[in-house]
């Protein structure tokens, strides 16, 4: 119940195309869903995040779509650029009794945008 399933494992897109990464969860206690972008040798960087009371959030070329009833959410990268080539992780967060947050990560998607 703690898992977050992410697909695809790898994705190759032409420059200017749309990249779509999907995630699914089981535990309804998750209340916050961030996406992280990680370049080789670097720490993950928070990219965009959504709360379950919102069905869509857009920031520039990045959009999260959230389907609460299906327990699924996805990241759409519009007009994909070679600089977007990185590993993307979805995550789901829930509160702990001690005021910390439990962040459960998907397995990651390696995105390659061809020039």
């Amino acid at each position, binding site marked *: 119940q703690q898992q977050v399933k992410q697909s695809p494992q790898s994705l190759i897109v032409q420059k200017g195309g749309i990249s779509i990464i999907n995630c699914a969860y089981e535990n309804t206690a998750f*209340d*916050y869903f*961030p996406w*992280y972008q990680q370049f080789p*040798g*670097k*720490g*993950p*960087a*928070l990219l965009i*995040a959504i*709360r379950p009371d919102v069905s869509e959030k857009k920031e520039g070329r990045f959009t999260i779509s959230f389907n609460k009833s299906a327990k699924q959410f996805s990241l759409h990268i519009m007009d994909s650029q070679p600089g977007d080539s990185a590993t993307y*992780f979805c995550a789901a*967060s829930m509160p702990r009794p*001690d*005021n*910390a*947050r*439990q*962040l459960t*990560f*998907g*397995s*990651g998607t390696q995105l390659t945008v061809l020039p």
Partner: protein
Amino acid sequence: SQTIHQWPATLVQPVGSPLSLECTVEGTSNPNLYWYRQAAGRGLQLLFYSVGIGQISSEVPQNLSASRPQDRQFILSSKKLLLSDSGFYLCAWSAGTSSLMRSYNEQFFGPGTRLTVL
């Protein structure tokens, strides 16, 4: 603004040697601190987290330990490294408390330490 530092950036250690990785956060007080490990080509596994000085919670029983001697300092240690301890170690922080009714405490990651155990 908040900044998180980790050192060293890379480390090569022989099996059986001790380990000490350090993480410090600037620009915030009373943060929650986290240690993650990332195996090559895989996701992130939470190892330890801390909600305050001297308060450590362990997620995965293993060869490692963590300590928080100061509010914004988090240390990952081992007395004797194993080959399986190799990986990319990431420290993260989040706001410890918030005056907002609904705060989701985003976690922000440091640059990481690449550990190779030979």
